[in-house]
């Protein structure tokens, strides 16, 4: 997070089916809640363009399910057309409803492009558990494939008093008008958490703090139980998203890892 304690934008790769209309709507919803711009990118993979230079390379085309030789110019044209279609999908899906957005076409290696594009105050949106692109410095919003935005409590997982998840979760809860559920580790001052939540704009009656073990995803899953939440906000695990994959697949709700 930047020193201003805010986020700048959500960055979403919408190329090659990485994100569909549902993902766009979900990303837009979070952009609105966080008060940030939605920045969509289409990355023209250089490696794909280079395929044409390989003498043996061929393309397995869908939906015809047949192999075709690769023509460089045709491939480039198809990439450009895919970019146009991605832009059209964006415009068609989101319309003009007030969330600032931008669209950019990049060329290069996708992960490197994203890493190069994103700053520490950006949130990279990744759809599905196998989504490509890791931006080491940026926060990450994991979206389940086909997720429809819904109401419910905003869950903040706090390992300690200075866990940044609380502020972000409070901002989302206040913007959404929903409640805040804080799963706080034993080191967290419950009263302080409540006060900070109320100060951030969450109604006092809608703040729930539960002191539970939060060290492992299984603990968090157990703590959440049958609750219906709209997002889980937690600090990015040191070991990476893989560590929270089980939690993500188990709850099938967006997870904001900051």
């Amino acid at each position: 997070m930047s020193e201003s304690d805010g986020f700048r934008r959500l960055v979403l790769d919408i190329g090659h089916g990485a994100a569909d209309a549902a993902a766009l709507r979900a990303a837009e919803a979070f952009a609105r809640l966080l008060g940030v711009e939605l920045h969509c990118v289409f990355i023209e993979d250089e490696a794909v363009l280079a395929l044409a230079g390989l003498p043996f390379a061929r393309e397995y085309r869908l939906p015809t399910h047949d192999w075709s030789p690769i023509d460089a110019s045709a491939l480039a044209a198809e990439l450009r057309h895919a970019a146009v279609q991605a832009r059209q999908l964006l415009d068609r899906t989101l319309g003009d409803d007030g969330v600032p957005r931008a669209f950019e076409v990049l060329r290069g290696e996708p992960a490197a492009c994203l890493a190069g594009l994103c700053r520490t105050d950006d949130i990279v949106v990744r759809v599905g558990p196998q989504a490509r692109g890791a931006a080491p410095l940026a926060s990450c919003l994991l979206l389940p494939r086909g997720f429809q935005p819904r109401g419910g409590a905003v869950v903040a997982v706090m390992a300690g008093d200075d866990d940044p998840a609380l502020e972000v979760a409070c901002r989302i809860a206040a913007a959404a008008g929903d409640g805040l559920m804080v799963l706080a580790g034993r080191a967290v001052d419950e009263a302080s958490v409540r006060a900070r939540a109320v100060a951030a704009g969450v109604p006092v009656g809608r703040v729930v703090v539960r002191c539970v073990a939060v060290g492992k995803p299984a603990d968090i899953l157990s703590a959440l139980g049958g609750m219906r939440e709209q997002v889980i906000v937690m600090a990015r695990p040191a070991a990476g998203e893989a560590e929270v994959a089980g939690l993500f697949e188990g709850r099938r709700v967006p997870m904001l890892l900051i």
Partner: protein
Amino acid sequence: MSSEDTQFIRAVAPERLHRAADLGGLAFETTADLAALPGLVHQQRAQEAISFGAAMGQRGFNIFAIGAGGARMQHAAKTLLDDAARARAYPRDWVYVANFAEAHRPVALALPGGRAPGFQKAVHDLIDDLRVSLPAVFESEDYQKRRGSIEQAIQAKNEQAFAALNERAAAKNIVILRTPMGFGMAPVKNGKVVPPAEFNGWPEAAQQETQAAIAELEKELEQTLRAIPRTEKAQRDALRALDRETAEVAVAPPFEHLKAAFADLPAVLAHIEAMRADLLENVQYFVSPEAAAQGAAQAAMRLAGPFDRYEINVFVTQADHGAGAPVIEEPHPTLANLVGRIEYQQVQGALVTNFRLIKAGALHRANGGMILLDARSLLSEPYSWQALKRALLRQEVTIEDVARFIGLATTVSLEPDPIPLDVKVVLFGDRMLYYMLISLDPEMAQHFKVLADFDDEMDRSPESEAMLARLIGGMAAEGGLRPLDRGGVARAIEHAARVADDAGKLTLMVERLQDVVAEADHLAGRAGRGVIGAADIEQAIAGRIHRGARIQERGREMILRDIALIETSGARVGQVNGLSVLSLGDYAFGQPSRITCQVRPGAGRIIDIEREVKLGGPIHSKGVLILSGFLAGRYALEVPMSLTASLVFEQSYGGVEGDSASSAELYSLLSALAEVPLRQDLAVTGSVNQHGMVQAIGGVNEKIEGFFDICAARGLTGTQGVMIPASNVQHLMLRADVVAACAAGRFAVYPVASIDEGIALLAGVPAGGRGADGAYAEGSVNRRVEDRLRRFAAARREAEGEHGEGKPG
């Protein structure tokens, strides 16, 4: 004058010229004191026929009621039919519902009478409930988890397959790349794709090893990708099964509740089950906003939302009327109004429809009961008569689209189930129409076996006058008119006799009486009276006459100005005042016509000049031919007729029909032959037969009044009058001024039974009878005629002798 023939012909006594009403036996001040007469009055025959037809359950015993216009048949019969309908079983309700298997063939369902609206509401409420409850079920935690689990499992399977492929590829330093249109493969080194230039610099063996690895991986990629549609289908099937299972659980209770309400109706239960099955197939409309929007767009082409397919079209229901069967009157029996119609609306240039736009016709509404139709209106509407007969023959009503009959194609059409028909049809029409139909349409007798013949008039008696008084009082009350006092009632009854054209009858064409009473009410109101009196009735009658009398007055004026030559005094040979009636619309009046005759020797032919120029109708011609028979029978038994006579209605330039002037023609012929002048102060009406008997005619009152008006305008001389058939005396209902003039001896009406009586009165000379020698009395009219004919015969023989074969005269 006096003669042995006229001594017994006395003028009709004044009291017989107009029969006054006799209400002495009925105590009342005004008609407000009288109880109205409901239903049919003095229509025993028709009443029995209607009651019989209404009770008859066999096919074909529909009723055709005939009578003159103005008899209020329909109004009167409806009371009888309402009574009969009350005793009939309560008919069924009918609804149309969607046919889920064949959308263009809506299904007709019968329910017990009055239950269709309840069925409609129950289904509507069920769908409304499901529109709320089904989405909630599909948004539930359990469903979402199970759905997510299925989707995840399939996705995971695909992703695992891809991940495994990627791993195998990575193990061989190959990467699978996503292209805009599919997938490709490229070699990697240290996690990065090897640029083509670098790869081309590899040793041949390394290149081939890479190519071989890629070739093998391409096969696996292809297998993996080809498996995806199968897994996706498996996902769709699994989701569909989940949706169906979820929906089945959700819809079961409301559907069971609905079924319980109609457990006694197997056809309805079957439809409910079909509805449930269709709903489960199309549950996405309830669950998914996108699917609902798409379904709505498609359904808009059928003018219905996606859920409207489950609604019920209440086609006919008995819920709104009381006990018994319906009695429906259809005043405008077009095909659509009779057998129902399918409505269409335009959507994007196409005409579209659905089962909810099927509308019932009068036959549907009358099903199980009775339908009343005007025959002339029915026959005037294209296809209606045929459609009615078809429906009666097949015992079902099929909604038929006129557009298809006349070749107009519609883009979307329906073939709704026909509805079984059990209805009693009652047609109302005039007699001519009925007899034409029965003789020309063979199906008429098949379907309308009961004739209800309404009398136009009833015998006049104190009892029937009292009945008519109550009827008139009831009409006045029903029409919101003032009551009539005794004088008004009496005058109205006398008018009823005049309308019947018979002092011994009263008309049953009550609409004509109603019109007069309504006018009299207006006049009474204008004069500030609270009851209608005789003067108001009289004034109303006079007003109606005045409004229609323009042509009559012009004709009278022409006579008075001697433009049309009619004498009302003196005597002429071969000339007599005949009388005719002119009918213009609903107004008739009499006027005199001069009839003249010329005679000469000839071949025995009486020339009817009207017939020669085709102005004479067949009945008129028959009357003239009868004269020939009379002459021959009386005067030519021993010698052939050697006469040529020509008869004409002078100054008549229009058609002449009827034989009511045949006695006048005979008088003029006899006068011409006998060379005796006939009185011009008398007018003559009456037909004659070959034996010289004077027979009754119609319009006797108008004829007398027509001649009276001419004489009165010129000044009554005291000798003027009209000769009428004796058998018409019973029909006399003359105006008060005519009666007064006759009572004062200034005008007279003479009843004549035979030509001999009449000629004696007209000529002032006895007709004469045959003596023992067979000859007529000397100086009598008959003698003079016979002598003249003999002279004609001699002259003819002489002429033929001079010229050989004589030419006809």
